[in-house]
């Protein structure tokens, strides 16, 4: 029996790349298998599969807690059952592009905290670096093990209407979402039995093993003690911290479990202090060490930065990597790639205007309806102005605010995020998506797990995929 109703309301968005349909409304070949599977499945069965996926997330505890009136409510990150599929050719380019970009970004961070050739050669203005809140003076002149600053990155990509992938953000500090990449795949195995192998979909389950290998290789010890530092149970990504610690078989620690003595980090065990060699921290730079950064922080460990500078402990990612994923610095990444690697960028940047430059400011204001304005140090989809949605009064207020400190703002043309089929009320509808692959850098190079987190803007017509603002996720299949 064919479920004809399923596709009855699939209205393609104008001027937008759809992942499943090409311009002639034909199904792209990589979607054939899942398409025929869905067509031969009744709406009742699809509903059941959706319900099953929700139950699985709940019972495994793949949830985040929203606190309201002292009462914690368990929520799941909405999951759309229809996978997003990427061809091997497309993946190949993403893989090469991210590796190139991370190589350049890592060289940039090292340069900034040491010789600053890129400033001296006039590629990047010095004041941009020194005014960036993520620039850490505490890291100047510090030699990090194997010169690796960014060990873990979750680069956000979007596909524009020309079919090309563009880099939206580099996310070089403590990117999250990888547990959803892993968990979504486990759910897919349950709800589409047999479909993954038939499609030759590349596995993602090796991620924790690669991560552990890269972490422990950073230490000179034979059997280093690697731990994961979490801000604690109230953090919205706590589920991810417990999952990664469990899958790697390492200890999940909180700041109060650690103590620094004579520039060595220890954890407090039932049988005394035990040395810690490598810390995969999911605590932001600001909170890492109350002696050097935010003095009120109870999430970090006093003295940990001094131990780090002495080389007695490894911190992953290195403190200060935020300098390279600031939105104002982002503009210069293509220049960095040329400067450090003498290569053309494989993945494009989105055209970005610096509002601190009068001519660019003027251009943005004139084309405000086609622009999105962002704060250079913002994240999570907050503090943005979407020109096409905002009222004239909202635009005026925002621009007045920009004028106070124009250097803190950038503008980008509103993008046509590509759409992918989502199961909404028993029918497939196109929804905007992005892609966050996870890259791991270590002594023997960079590895990117084939797949990643595809985030979906579940609201019709919305471009905001952030989980805090009505976003959901999909499993991401890369074909062998």
């Amino acid at each position: 029996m064919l479920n004809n109703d399923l596709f009855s309301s699939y209205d393609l968005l104008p001027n937008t790349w759809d992942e499943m349909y090409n311009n002639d409304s034909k199904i792209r070949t990589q979607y054939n298998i899942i398409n025929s599977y869905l067509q031969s499945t009744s709406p009742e069965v699809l509903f059941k599969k959706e319900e099953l996926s929700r139950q699985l997330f709940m019972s495994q505890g793949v949830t985040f807690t929203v606190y309201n009136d002292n009462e914690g409510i368990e929520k799941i990150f909405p999951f759309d059952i229809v996978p997003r599929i990427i061809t091997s050719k497309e993946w190949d380019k993403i893989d090469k592009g991210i590796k190139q970009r991370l190589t350049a970004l890592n060289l940039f961070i090292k340069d900034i905290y040491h010789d600053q050739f890129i400033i001296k050669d006039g590629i990047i203005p010095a004041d941009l670096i020194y005014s960036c809140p993520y620039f850490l003076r505490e890291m100047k002149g510090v030699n990090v093990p194997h010169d690796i600053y960014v060990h873990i990155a979750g680069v956000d990509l979007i596909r524009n209407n020309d079919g090309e992938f563009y880099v939206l953000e580099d996310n070089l500090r403590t990117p999250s979402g990888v547990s959803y990449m892993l968990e979504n795949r486990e759910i897919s195995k349950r709800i589409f039995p047999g479909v993954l192998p038939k499609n030759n979909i590349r596995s993602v389950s090796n991620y924790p093993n690669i991560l552990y290998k890269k972490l422990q290789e950073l230490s000179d010890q034979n059997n280093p003690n690697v731990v994961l530092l979490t801000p604690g149970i109230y953090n919205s990504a706590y589920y991810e911290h417990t999952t990664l610690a469990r899958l790697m078989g390492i200890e999940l620690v909180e700041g109060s479990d650690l103590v620094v003595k004579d520039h060595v980090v220890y954890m407090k065990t039932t049988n005394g202090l035990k040395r810690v060699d490598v810390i995969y921290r999911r605590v932001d730079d600001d909170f890492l060490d109350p002696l050097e950064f935010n003095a009120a922080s109870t999430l970090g460990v006093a003295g940990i930065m001094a131990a780090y500078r002495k080389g007695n402990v490894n911190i992953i990612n290195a403190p200060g990597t935020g300098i390279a994923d600031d939105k104002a610095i982002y503009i210069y990444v293509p220049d960095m790639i040329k400067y450090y690697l003498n290569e053309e960028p494989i993945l494009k940047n989105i055209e970005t205007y610096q509002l601190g430059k009068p001519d660019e400011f003027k251009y943005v204001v004139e084309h405000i309806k086609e622009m999105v304005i962002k704060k250079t140090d913002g994240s999570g989809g907050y503090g943005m102005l979407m020109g096409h949605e905002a009222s004239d009064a909202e635009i005026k207020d925002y621009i007045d605010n920009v004028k106070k400190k124009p250097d803190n703002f950038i503008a980008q043309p509103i993008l046509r995020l590509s759409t992918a089929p989502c199961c909404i009320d028993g029918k497939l509808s196109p929804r905007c998506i992005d892609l966050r692959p996870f890259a791991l850098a270590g002594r023997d190079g960079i590895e990117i797990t084939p797949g990643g987190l595809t985030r979906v803007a579940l609201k019709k017509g919305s471009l905001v995929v952030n989980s805090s603002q009505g976003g959901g996720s999909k499993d991401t299949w890369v074909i062998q």
Partner: protein
Amino acid sequence: MLSRVANNLIWLERYMERGNGIISLLKTNFYANQDSPELFPWTPIIKTYTPENNSFYTEDPIECINFMVFSNDNPNSILNIVTKARENARSVQEHISRELWLCINNYYLLLTKIGVQKKLNEEEPIEFLDSLKAYHLMFYGTMDITQERGASYYFMNIGKYLERVIQITDFTAIKLTEIAKTSDSLEQSFYWKNLLLSIGGYQLYLKKHKSSFKEDHIITMVFQDKLFPRSIYYCINKLNRHVRQLIESGELEKNNIEFLLGKLESTIKYTTIESINERGLENFIKEIKEDIKNISFSINTVYFSHFN
């Protein structure tokens, strides 16, 4: 093992054990209350498990069970206990078996599901309490067959037996105050039988002593029986064994706990029923409670001693 983790494991088990005990108590009292509400009122149960400032009391069975299971204001409601057990489990997921985590999480999800409270009011209360009890039994079984014998297991068992021994002494102390109020030997035997039912020893008692309720037999069984898993001796013996295993495996430094436990174990083992009667059961219980308080305190210092 991290001190915080050890502490969380102990409390995870303490809460689960407490939940199991409270559900048993509610079930036993429900039946007894149907027979003689004047002997088995609900108020003492509420009083035992709520803080001093609690003002909610009821003699309506469903209202009481509702309060003891679902109330947000009652720190020892099953809902609050399981929430705390789950929070402890959540932060030690890499130390407990996956199955054990799923078991606790599903229990929590059941208790927080919309409409579950309605079920208690509309369905038969014993069936409802049994459906909760089933999660505790599953928890015990899952822990037994999935958890490796190592530091996590030993610390969890310390929590379990510590909570259990506290419960038994508390239950017994409550019954003693009630027994003291009456001189009717039939009523007294009802109380003793009720105690056995609450801690799950009634069947064993019948097997050993048939249906004749002698105070001395009951006291000997509750306090000194070597094979009854809910006797005080059995719990102290297990506590002792698990502490020793932690010391032997290098997870715990040799300290005061071992001495305190060993001392208490021999006291209970070698005190005769005659000498218990001589100094009075209340005093005997008081001494045991004092010792347990010190042991519990020493166990807490395992967690706190490395904080500096």
